[in-house]
């Protein structure tokens, strides 16, 4: 059979923080994703290549990496949509320490979720009556979008404030805090408002909206952060925190 298969040159980051790009020739297949392409390299060319994935269908958020300089989910990115001059460059997510090849250490990212009090905190004592939250409830509407975040880290990698100020909590952690601040069944305030307005707090956001541009779910962390700024500002002016 004649082999007239088109190849793509894929430059893949190899090593840790110190390392370099290694080029692979990978056959182009219609409708193949970046993840398919990495699987081909690992199974057929170099089994030592490290990358992370789990669900393969855009639900788990574990496969994000820099594709031609932009953070993307590899499982939901078609090669034909991002390939430039038959070439691709794959790097680990920006703004996070590299473990090996395309795998980053997500610990700083999740540490910041904790720092922003990104977990639900119920009342200290059992509540006597549940707060009814109707679908049309204004506060609930604010949470609706923010709650869809699956922690992939694309926004964190795209954020230039995180890049210039490593203490900045980042779009994902602040977006999560915003969803909890508007949860009538959560009782972590005003401590959460204080947590999101420390040195690395919401005030650092420049509203450049790179997080919005790069969120694979089209969420709007910038809007959530703007909401936080307003909520913290009002609480500060009222002397509540």
């Amino acid at each position, binding site marked *: 059979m004649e082999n007239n298969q088109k190849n793509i040159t894929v430059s893949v980051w190899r090593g840790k923080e110190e390392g370099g790009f290694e080029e692979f020739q990978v056959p182009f297949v219609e409708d193949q994703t970046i993840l398919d392409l990495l699987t081909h390299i690992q199974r057929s060319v170099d089994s030592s290549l490290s990358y992370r994935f789990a669900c393969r269908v855009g639900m788990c958020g574990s496969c994000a990496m820099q594709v031609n300089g932009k953070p993307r989910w590899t499982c939901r990115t078609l090669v034909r949509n991002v390939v430039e001059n038959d070439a691709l460059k794959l790097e680990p997510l920006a703004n996070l320490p590299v473990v090996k090849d395309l795998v980053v250490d997500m610990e700083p990212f999740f540490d910041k979720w904790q720092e922003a009090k990104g977990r639900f905190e119920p009342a200290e004592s059992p509540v006597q009556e549940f707060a009814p939250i109707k679908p049309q409830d204004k506060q609930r509407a604010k949470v609706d979008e923010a709650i869809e975040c699956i922690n992939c880290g694309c926004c964190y990698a795209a954020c230039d*404030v995180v890049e210039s*100020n490593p203490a900045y909590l980042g779009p994902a952690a602040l977006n999560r805090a915003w969803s909890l601040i508007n949860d009538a069944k959560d009782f972590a305030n005003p401590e959460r408002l*204080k947590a999101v*307005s*420390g040195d690395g707090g919401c*005030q650092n956001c420049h509203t450049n909206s790179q997080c919005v541009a790069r969120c694979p779910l089209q969420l709007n962390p910038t809007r959530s952060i703007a909401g936080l700024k307003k909520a*913290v500002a009002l609480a500060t002016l009222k002397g509540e*925190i």
Partner: protein
Amino acid sequence: MSNRIEFKLWLLHRLSAMLLGLFVVVHIVGMIIAIQGGLSSAEILQRTSGNYAMGVFYSVFTIAAAVHSSIGLRTVAFEVLGWRGASINLVLTVFFLMLCVTGISAVGGLVL
């Protein structure tokens, strides 16, 4: 620096921006109205002398501008130059005081 001070500085930056937005419009409209028909600087000084309401307006304007520019430059120093800590705080405190002193003395010259 204490955690909450960073946020309070940011808030002060935003509140001073709101004031400046209003004051700049009043200032420009005032200037346009004042120079209609042509006024010499001596005639302007004659009209502003003793106008204490204007003195208060421009004093607050000066302080808002000093606050806004000092905090803004502090952020630029940190994010662009990586300069942070006591030294930049000291430099910008001096800058802030200089703007206040020169600005308010200019207002004094206009009103007193």
